């Protein structure tokens, strides 16, 4: 359904997307996982024809995203990180406006708007100004807006960003249902592991504009546990910086991250990993309070592949991403 080949996007000297290639099958939920500024959103913008690639090509449903952008636009819907709707228009007026930009007969559009509002339980508020909606309601509107043209491919950019857990679950369920019932191909960017884990059939892990791994969630986790790596959560009651440093320098330890003042999470390799870690801690006079052998999470996979945590590099590159430069959108209705 989607073919991406050597996609590159530069903003001046900064390479936001660096030689990215992947294919997405029809009816698949495909995740782009990575920290802010990794190039996920830019990739999504290029695929949804909102930005042009510096190099490389991509095609959706057989249409080139640059040469046949109008055809591509008929096939896609996009749920942007920013809410695409007007605060001074009612829910219905918003949907009507965006729907009328597609070639949909007005009776069909009227029916579809009613159905969509019903689907996200906003029928009651269809004549209320969107500016008065809660964040959760707005995000549901935002999703529904992208479905007006019954897209065969739906792009979701950080769909659960800033939502409470309850609303996040609702959005995830909704997306899954959409995929199951309509066979919509879905590409979702996220930096939350839960989203990626629970939603996606396959996940591409992106860091610094590059795809560092691409597989199903299960297979990605096998990168760690399938090898001879072990994930340990170690509780040390008298944890010191010196002790952390010692653990880091152990040749069997791949990565160390401190979770709080007493707990350390580390990935270690080898059959004798347990023994060597325990020896090291006790050799430094550390008192082991607890020790757990954990199942790997996508966070571990990310750490394992990139050597840093997802939230680590989050702040570094945000200013360079052009379309995010303006900060948070302003609400205009008071």
């Amino acid at each position, binding site marked *: 359904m989607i073919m991406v080949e050597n996609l590159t996007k530069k903003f001046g000297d900064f390479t936001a997307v660096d030689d990215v290639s992947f294919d997405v099958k029809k009816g698949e939920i495909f995740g782009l996982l990575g920290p802010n500024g990794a190039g996920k959103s830019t990739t999504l913008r290029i695929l949804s024809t909102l930005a042009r690639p510096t190099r490389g090509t991509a095609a959706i449903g057989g249409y080139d995203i640059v040469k046949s952008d109008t055809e591509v636009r008929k096939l896609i819907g*996009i749920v*942007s990180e920013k809410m695409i709707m007007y605060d001074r228009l009612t829910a219905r007026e918003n949907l009507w406006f965006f729907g009328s930009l597609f070639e949909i007969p007005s009776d069909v559009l009227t029916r579809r708007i009613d159905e969509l509002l019903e689907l996200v339980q906003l029928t009651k508020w269809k004549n209320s100004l969107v500016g008065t909606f809660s964040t959760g309601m707005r995000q549901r509107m935002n999703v529904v807006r992208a479905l007006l043209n019954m897209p065969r491919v739906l792009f979701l950019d950080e769909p659960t960003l800033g939502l409470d857990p309850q609303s996040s679950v609702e959005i995830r369920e909704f997306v899954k249902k959409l995929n199951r019932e309509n066979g919509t191909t879905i590409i979702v960017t996220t930096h939350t592991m839960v989203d990626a884990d629970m939603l996606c059939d396959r996940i591409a892990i992106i860091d610094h504009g590059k795809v560092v791994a691409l597989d199903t969630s299960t297979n990605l986790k096998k990168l760690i546990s399938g090898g001879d790596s072990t994930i340990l959560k170690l509780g040390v009651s008298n944890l010191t910086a010196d002790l952390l440093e010692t653990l880091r320098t152990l040749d069997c330890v791949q990565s160390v991250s401190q979770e709080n003042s007493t707990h350390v999470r580390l990935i270690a390799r080898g059959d004798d990993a347990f023994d060597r870690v325990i020896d090291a801690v006790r050799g430094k006079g550390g008192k082991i309070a607890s020790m757990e052998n954990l199942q790997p999470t996508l966070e571990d996979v990310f750490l394992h592949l990139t050597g840093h945590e997802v939230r680590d590099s989050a702040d570094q590159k945000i200013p360079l991403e052009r379309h995010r430069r303006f900060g948070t959108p302003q609400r205009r209705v008071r």
Partner: protein
Amino acid sequence: MGARTLLSHSFRIAWKDILELYRNRFGLVLLIVMPLFMMAMVGFIYPTSGSSASNLPVAIVDSDAGYHNSTIASQTFTSVLQRINSKTDMMKLTTASSPADIKNLIQEGDVEGGIIIPSNFSKSLASGEQGTVVIITDQSNPQVSTAIQTLLSSVFSEMSTMMAQRNVQTLNPTITANDSLAIVQPYKVQTQGVVPGAPNYFDFVAPGIMAMVVMMSVMTGLPAAISQEKEIGTMDGMMVAPINRLSIILGKTLGQTVRGLLQGFIILILAVGLFGVTIQGSILLVFGLLLLGVFSFVGLGIVITSFAKDQQTATMLMTTLMFPMMFLSGVFFPIQQMPWYMQDISKVLPLTYASSALRKVMVLGAGIPDITTELTILIVFGAVMTAIAVPVFRRMMTR
């Protein structure tokens, strides 16, 4: 994509913008208040022609020493001056003790000017010479200074005429007052306008303000509207729809134009209803001209939108451009009063032609044939700007 779809998409976008404007009650109020302020301000601050000044405080020093036993000429002079002034009340006359006193009064701001009748006034007149009267002006305020000079010169020349008339009649008592006037002043000036009635400053300024407000509204409104949609992200919603990029810019322009024309219409109503402006030409032509003015400006607005990164920059850029345009386009001050280099600048500004054409139509009742030069310039300017703007905008949209 056909022209019809393009237009229908534009109309939808324009309609959406107008709906947003309509919901913004505060903005709507400003839409009416702004032109009202503008009209009231420029209308009342600038002197209306005819009664250019009233009650200007002027001090008189009478140092006339008289001459032998003839009447003291300065007394006649002052009484005639007071008689003339009592008819018009242009000055508030006070007396001062000495020339130095006048200087003091001016420095303290109690009077705006002074009249000194020198000590040899009676002597000169009695010995067949001209009697000199000195006018003191306040140089720190050139406008008032000029006003007093003009005022006093005309009053004194009127007085001279009266005296001369009397002198002629003394020489030859058979001559009537009218004939004596013909001898003293053989030439008489009569001013006549092209249209009946006496146009006031509002008549001059209203067409210009209309042109300016409509264009300003579109020029500042368009970049602001587009960059705002970019900032809040709604622009993406339009961009992912399978519509021509042109219909976005066209629709936005249309929405802003409606807003601008609405403001123009409000000014027109205010001008006619509140400030007594009369419209000689066709109202349709007036609106046609406003539309053409918008067309000539819109390209510039789009170019600026494309370059400005956010709403604030766009608005600042527009204000920077609009400000000189306001003053150099002959909206408030006649271009003819400007030095030649400023006149040259004003000749390249489209607002100059829009406001001049509008003035001709509204004040002089001109028709299309009378304003072909202005029309041609506006059309050419608009076409060139649009030709530059469209590709620039397309590039900007898909970076």
